[in-house]
């Protein structure tokens, strides 16, 4: 994340709370990319991710008065964005066809031509697994926090992460013979 922009966002916070549109735009500019990136990694389509971006900032401007500064501003915005992205996943109920495909056409370790790059492999994960991977491994949420956001158990979050890494390892051709 751009640290200069992040510092800007904290500096304009009192003016954002006062409803100053210039300050609101500065906050948007500071967090637009990380919010969209998080949303796009969780949601299936760019349209959904852009909707999450809009919903997130709408909620941020509406609720900014309740932000007390206990944690970082980005942490607060990120939680709103994660929650909105997960809500959209639940609402759209994407079919998890990728896992079926994996069972039908398993990749052979020695078939290097079929090895995927990380972007493709991540995209191929089921939406639930991908969301857990991104929230845990990249955004740094704990299993307890993820379970709370997804309205699932801690065990569910852990097993989704393990399942996702098992698949990523296979698809990336990283399996080692025992």
């Amino acid at each position, binding site marked *: 994340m751009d640290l200069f922009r992040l510092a800007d966002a904290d500096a304009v916070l009192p003016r954002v709370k006062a409803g100053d549109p210039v300050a609101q735009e500065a906050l*948007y500019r500071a967090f637009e990319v990380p919010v*969209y*990136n998080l949303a796009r990694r969780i949601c299936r389509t760019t349209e959904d991710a852009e909707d999450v971006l809009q919903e997130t900032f709408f909620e941020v401007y509406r609720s900014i008065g309740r932000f007390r500064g206990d944690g970082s501003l980005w942490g607060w915005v990120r939680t709103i964005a994660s929650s909105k992205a997960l809500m959209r996943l639940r609402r759209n109920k994407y079919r998890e066809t990728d896992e079926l495909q994996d069972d039908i056409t398993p990749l052979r370790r020695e078939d290097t031509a079929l090895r995927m790059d990380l972007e493709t492999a*991540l995209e191929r994960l089921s939406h639930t697994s991908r969301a857990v991977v991104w929230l845990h491994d990249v955004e740094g949420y704990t299993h307890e926090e993820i379970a709370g956001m997804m309205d699932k158990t801690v065990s569910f979050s852990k097993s989704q992460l*393990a399942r996702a890494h098992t698949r990523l390892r296979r698809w990336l051709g990283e399996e080692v013979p025992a």
Partner: protein
Amino acid sequence: MTHLTMEQLLAVREPGLEPGVAGWRDHASACDLCRAELDRLDQRVARLRALPALQPSRNRFAEIRTATSASRRRKRWVAFSAGGFAVAASLTLAVVLTRTPELSGGSAQQVAEQQELDSIIARSRSLEGAIQDYNPDQRVTDGRTAVVAASLEDRLARVDDQLQMVNMMDQSVRREAALRLWRERVGLLNALVDVHVTRARAVGF
């Protein structure tokens, strides 16, 4: 020798020490295969974190700003509905009631106007209910829809301001003004329902 499962390898990477994890850590440090697997896991996570940030296709700040302003306006007329609505309705009804045939020997036309007013106020409540159930504040709108909704809400706010002034008008024009304003209010609410609810249904929300 039993090697660590993926779930155990991931548990080893977690902070803190849950039951059983100490034993798995000992195994990972002693077993070349599991240590290599743990290294690959660390590298995979590092690569995930290093993926390039994806960027939105366009700046959506203007739409967000319009939606935020619309929400403020909506709160204003919803507040009118919750508090001022009852006052305005009672004032308007009082205007008509004083002229009903039973109370003051008024004409059949006045009875018809009172019935129309009752019907319009009920319709107004019903339309507001539909908009509030839809909850536009929680919805994503495109810029054009947001601008149209904002314009309708501005006009609605002006009608509400005028409705609150009805009681200060001359007795001879109050009833007519009240009817006109309530009709206008229902027309604007109908248009808002079209903008929000009908459009939402069309796109499958």
